């Protein structure tokens, strides 16, 4: 370290100045927004901002009294976990097929799956809306589950595929000569060996599902299906305008589990976010 400090273009002061200011830029809005959750509404929207907070539990009272916050929470949890389960059930065999077999059209199928990641929600929003309306699934958690699963399936397949590629083929050959069939190899050998990839894929899919906005906005219309992400946009009390302290609170309710999940897969995060393209 001591030698590095002297080397050209490696100015420590500059380094920490740059990194430190960006860290502040990242964190200050978060801390400030957190404080909003514990302030009275009268202090939030004012002609000039009031920086020094007065502590208040207004937002909590309001949320618990006027908004079915636990319904939103339940909807989010159900839709997200359900969608991840669907993704794993469909995605693991697909990833296995794409990595462990050679067949005609394999790469095209793989690329097709990848390319669904590029599909803007807005493109398919209208048909999906009509589809679910015809199926009578509007405003249901089940519909959200199905759509989240579809949105994230490409990510799940590609992440798991990347981890499966790392498993030596010998392992599978060994199991085959030991007498195991294809499905048993998948279940007993491959899945345990790429568990980190499966967890990473699940976490990333879960986070994207928690965040999903446009489809949820179209499908959900009451507390039957509102998730946290979309419920936020409804925290407007008519003439009162946007109820920011309630929004801040709900944001943090969603933020905390995501933080935990991210810390859990921290080592695999960049690999997951690039759908397996970076091994970092």
């Amino acid at each position, binding site marked *: 370290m001591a030698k590095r400090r002297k080397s050209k273009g490696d100015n420590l002061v500059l380094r920490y100045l740059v990194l430190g200011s960006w860290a502040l830029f990242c964190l200050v809005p978060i801390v400030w927004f957190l404080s909003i959750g514990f302030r009275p509404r009268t202090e939030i929207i004012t002609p000039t901002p009031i920086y020094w907070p007065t502590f208040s539990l207004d937002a909590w009272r309001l949320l618990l009294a006027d908004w079915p916050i636990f319904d939103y929470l339940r909807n989010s949890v159900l839709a997200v976990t359900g969608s991840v389960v669907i993704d794993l059930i469909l995605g693991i065999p697909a990833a296995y097929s794409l990595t462990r077999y050679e067949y005609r059209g394999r790469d095209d199928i793989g690329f097709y799956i990848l390319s669904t990641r590029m599909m803007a929600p807005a493109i398919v929003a209208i048909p999906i809306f009509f589809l679910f309306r015809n199926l009578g699934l509007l405003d249901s958690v089940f519909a959200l589950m199905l759509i989240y699963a579809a949105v994230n399936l490409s990510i799940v397949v590609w992440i798991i595929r990347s981890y499966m590629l790392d498993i030596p083929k010998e*392992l599978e050959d060994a*199991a085959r000569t030991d*007498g195991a069939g294809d499905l048993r190899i998948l279940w007993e050998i491959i899945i345990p060996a790429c568990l980190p990839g499966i967890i990473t894929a699940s976490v990333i899919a879960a986070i994207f599902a928690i965040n999903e906005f446009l489809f949820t906005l179209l499908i959900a219309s009451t507390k039957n299906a509102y998730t946290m992400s979309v419920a936020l946009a409804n925290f407007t009390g008519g003439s009162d305008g946007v109820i920011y302290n309630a929004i801040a609170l709900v944001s943090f309710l969603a933020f905390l589990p995501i933080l935990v999940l991210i810390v859990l897969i921290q080592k695999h995060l960049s690999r997951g976010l690039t759908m397996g393209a970076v091994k970092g």
Partner: protein
Amino acid sequence: MARIELKDVVKRYGGFTGVRRMDLDIADEEFLVLLGPSGCGKTTTMRMIAGLEVPSEGEVVIGGEVVNEVDARDRDVAMVFQGYALYPNMSIYENIRFPLRMRGIPKADQDRLIRRAAEMVELGDFLDRKPGALSGGQRQRAALARAVVRQPQVFLMDEPLSNLDAKLRSSMRVQIKHLQRQLKITTVYVTHDQIEAMTLADRIVIMEKGAIRQIGTPDEIYSDPADTFVAGFIGAPPMNLVEGLAENGRFAAPGLVVACPGGVSGRVTLGVRPEDCHVVGEGLAALEGRVYGVEPTGETTYLTLRTGETLFEVKAARDARFNLGDLVRIGFDPDRLCYFDTETGARLRVQPYRSVA
């Protein structure tokens, strides 16, 4: 235990032929080694026997049955892989148990079989560990235990020792051979290491570019090579090969003249093993050259001589010491000389093979 036959087996990958017209008959209880440079199709051959690869043409017969269509899981062969292929999420005990479980061996018998297999490879104390917590040699033995536990009809081993250090390799060699003799299981063993091949094999199959060059006992392969490829591949250092001209019972190349059988004539390659050369006095020499390099190995000294354009390896006495550039005269053991057709590389069979033994 079973006899294995490969009948005109071909394996193609797209336009590329990995194995061409392989015809091979492996006797029951035999220890057969496939030897050849990397990429010559050894692994492919073995994988076809295992059922992990389907031949493009020809038949694989195990124990009298054509098994081309039989899945690997039903062939009753056990394979030991170069990278060991231990299941990382299972303990060693579970690893060894896996093939028993897959074959529906009654639970009551499993434990005894596992422990006995582990004892055979001296791994009894490590059964609770995960593969990651074992050394290379221990993993190797765990892989062996997993293969022997179910007493298969056939053992297949694909370069099982290549990831071990030299010392461990020689002790594992002894263990493997001992196990095979004890269990009397037909074994096909792949390696690119000729020492392994020579020490382990009942018979060696030398392969090159997907084709068999020679099949024979280690002795035959060494002393009676079928062509220049085998001659140049086997032996460390390998046989000297000198291109020259033979006529009227004399073979001549730059710096080298030697009497040869009358049947040999035309453009011919002479093969001499370094140990069949002796440093001799003037008049007796077949070859004269200047010292190009001296390599004392402790047990012996290898001299590299330069004659004309070629380099020539000679095994000299342990205490032979020469300086670079010294003139050295070499005589050959006439019975041990091999002649090859320079054009085709094929051996010219003009004198009967004389066994070393």
